[in-house]
């Protein structure tokens, strides 16, 4: 025992310990006060019904009720689509929702649904209202009424058909799961694309060309714009009717390609956010790759050139391996940043986008805690969020580590 203290606090180690306290103390203390302690309080809040307006909070019973609400998810089989699908929805069951064109046409020409769920019309509506345009939706306001009593607290997050059967992913809080999926969508698109693009740009501006500094500056300049400011400009550019981006698309393709609805469309809103985010962020990774490229000794290229390697081979067998560590750094940090996605979403689609297609976990936590006053619930979302990102980065790190082990 005494030896332990002697070792820890005596002599050289003791002096180091004192200096560590003096020099590292401020940072560690501040981290504890402003990061760790709030996080612990967040853990505590997540088991209460704390509200934003300061009304007294009580501990939930059971304490994990918020987590139960967030994490409960299941897969169930839905009843088959009946032959005669009603237009207006019962409280639970199938109903018909139509695409706008189809609906306008049907309203005008009174169509009927055929045996196979297609639409029979007197005229060319039939083409417009082909099966693809007819969307069968499942309304699950009260699952209990259709023999699914067990899932009364659940809602449909997504339903799909598989081998002729209808299935649904149900969750107590579908919006959280949508947010999680959107986060993965964003990260899976942004991390590889942004990394590849950054590398490409870095190689481009690393050539010995006159004025390359001008181009480096150009590509980096979006990075120094503040997200909340520049997102306002982009929202303007994405306007479907007057936006510059659609105009440019039509101009470049001579009107062959029509622009998109971008932020107004459930399929294009997330891509719009992705494009904008890559535009804003890629310059920074470019600089990091550029730094990595400049560290590769020139003679490696010379040697491989003498060996007869072409440009692609040089890239594949010299550049890439030499950039390995840079690549790891870029991928790890971009992943973490991608999961934090919030600012641009909040400015460009404050309501979470069409069909919640741009809702993210952080957006949802802010929406719950700030807009809806439910601080306790928001804290639980934050805790789950941090846990998920922690797991992802641990997985990434372990992959990196194993690869390095194999290399050796």
């Amino acid at each position: 025992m005494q030896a332990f203290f002697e070792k820890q606090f005596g002599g050289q180690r003791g002096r180091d310990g004192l200096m560590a306290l003096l020099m590292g103390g401020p940072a560690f203390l501040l981290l504890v006060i402003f990061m760790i302690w709030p996080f612990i309080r967040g853990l505590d809040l997540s088991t209460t019904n704390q509200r934003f307006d300061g009304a007294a909070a009580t501990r939930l019973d059971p304490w994990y009720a918020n987590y139960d609400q967030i994490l409960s998810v299941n897969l169930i089989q839905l009843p088959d689509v009946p032959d005669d699908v009603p237009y207006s929805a019962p409280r639970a069951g199938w109903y018909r929702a139509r695409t706008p064109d189809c609906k306008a046409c049907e309203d005008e020409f009174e169509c009927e649904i055929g045996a196979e769920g297609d639409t029979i019309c007197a005229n060319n509506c039939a083409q417009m209202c082909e099966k693809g345009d007819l969307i069968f939706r499942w309304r699950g306001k009260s699952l209990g009424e259709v023999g699914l009593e067990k899932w009364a607290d659940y809602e449909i997050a997504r339903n799909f058909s598989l081998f002729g059967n209808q299935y649904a992913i149900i969750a107590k809080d579908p919006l959280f799961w949508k947010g999680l999926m959107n986060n993965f969508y964003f990260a899976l698109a942004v991390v590889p694309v942004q990394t590849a693009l950054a590398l490409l740009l870095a190689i481009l501006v690393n050539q010995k060309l006159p004025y390359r500094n001008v181009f480096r500056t150009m590509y980096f300049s979006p990075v120094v714009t503040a997200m909340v400011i520049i997102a306002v400009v982009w929202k303007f550019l994405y306007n479907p009717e007057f936006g510059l981006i659609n105009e440019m698309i039509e101009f470049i393709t001579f009107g062959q390609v029509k622009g998109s609805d971008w932020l107004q469309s459930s399929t294009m809103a997330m891509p719009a956010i992705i494009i904008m985010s890559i535009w804003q962020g890629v310059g920074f990774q470019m600089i990091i790759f550029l730094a990595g490229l400049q560290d590769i000794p020139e003679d490696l290229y010379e040697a491989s050139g003498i060996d007869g390697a072409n440009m692609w081979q040089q890239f594949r067998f010299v550049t890439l391996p030499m950039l390995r560590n840079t690549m790891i750094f870029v991928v790890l940090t971009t992943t973490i940043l991608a999961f934090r996605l919030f600012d641009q979403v909040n400015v460009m689609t404050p309501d979470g986008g069409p069909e919640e297609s741009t809702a993210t976990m952080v957006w949802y936590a802010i929406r719950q805690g700030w807009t809806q006053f439910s601080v306790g619930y928001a804290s639980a979302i934050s805790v789950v969020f941090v846990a998920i990102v922690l797991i992802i980065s641990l997985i990434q790190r372990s992959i990196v580590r194993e690869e390095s082990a194999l290399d050796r």
Partner: protein
Amino acid sequence: MKALRLLVLVAIIVAVALPVTVAAQDKQEVSLWFHSGQGSERDALDDQITRFNEASDMYEIVPLEVPEGNYNDQVKAAALAGELPCVLDFDGPNVYNYVFSGDLIPLDAHVSEELLADVLPSIIAQGTVEGQLWSLGQFDSGLGLWANKAMLVEAGVRIPEGLEDTWTLDEFNAALDALAGVVPEDGYVIDFKFTYEGEWYSYAFGPWIRSFGGDTIDKDTMATAEGVLNGPEAVAFGEWFQGLFEKGYATATPVDPDADFNEGRVPLSYAGHWMYNTYKDALGDNLVLIPQPDFGNGAVTGMGSWNWSITSACETPDGAWAFIDWIMQPDNVKQMTDGNGAVPSLISVLEADARYAPGGDLYLYFRQLTEDIAVPRAATAAYPAISTAMSDAINALARGEDVQASLDAAVDTIDSYIETLDQ
């Protein structure tokens, strides 16, 4: 010893300076926040605060302007932090939530019978929760369809005179179809102010849903929106409303709708009193106000606007009341409403204003507010959720999302919020 002497010196300075500073501050400071929206409202209030401070030898109002877009967020943050000012203004329906959270004190002990008798019934209804009066406002809001008279005439559309002969749903639809024929190439038929964010959608479209036969919350129980906001009547509204966007009559992504109306690119603009001055300047006598259409269950209009309260954190409620009493004086109410085009909250001011007399530009607002078709927004602590849910749902409808699913989502938002209140 030296240090001690220094300390003594400091102590002496403090001892001498303290009474001096106290003496200099013989007026009690009363903190006040207000949302800074229209420039004219800012100017009028600034002037009223200045004059109040000059006139009062008891209290000094210390105002803070907060941009409207951030206002609710900032008030929330301050409430959480226990940092609310003495006097606070907020958009009508938030009063229920603030009362529920215990942030306000009632005004009953202060307000005089005389004043109460002069205030518009709609304002009193808005500020009354659980039989007590919590807030008063200088003005109420007017809501209706601003129209370009020349374009309506060109399309052969009948202009209703008043509430008796207001458009029915069929007539409204026919008018829209007819107007579609006269709008210019780069125009559209009706502007719904989709550049606004937040509260607008609940305020503006809640009444329409009600006129269709639905509602934003079950007014009998106040416990759920199920069956009213997603029932067949509300769905009918949704289908109709969405149709306007599908037919290209309205746009969910306008860039500058005010200019579109001013410059004759759009003949109808669904907006409130706050557009009166802008539109009047641009259109002059060509501007006409059309009352709320009757969608089947009678015409319904929104009401309520920004109003003033005293917070429970206030240490000088008398000073706070003195200020509210001051701005509720007829001259000050008139100064404010002359500027922002809103409906004065005092009957005496209304009656003296030619714009609200029969034949005046804004006579319809007066009638809408006094003839029992004005319905306050849902008086529930869940109002913040209703506001968010309505904003999300109306935007979703405009984008062409499934009507039933959008309204169901709105109901879920509201109901799950009510659940957290009950816990």
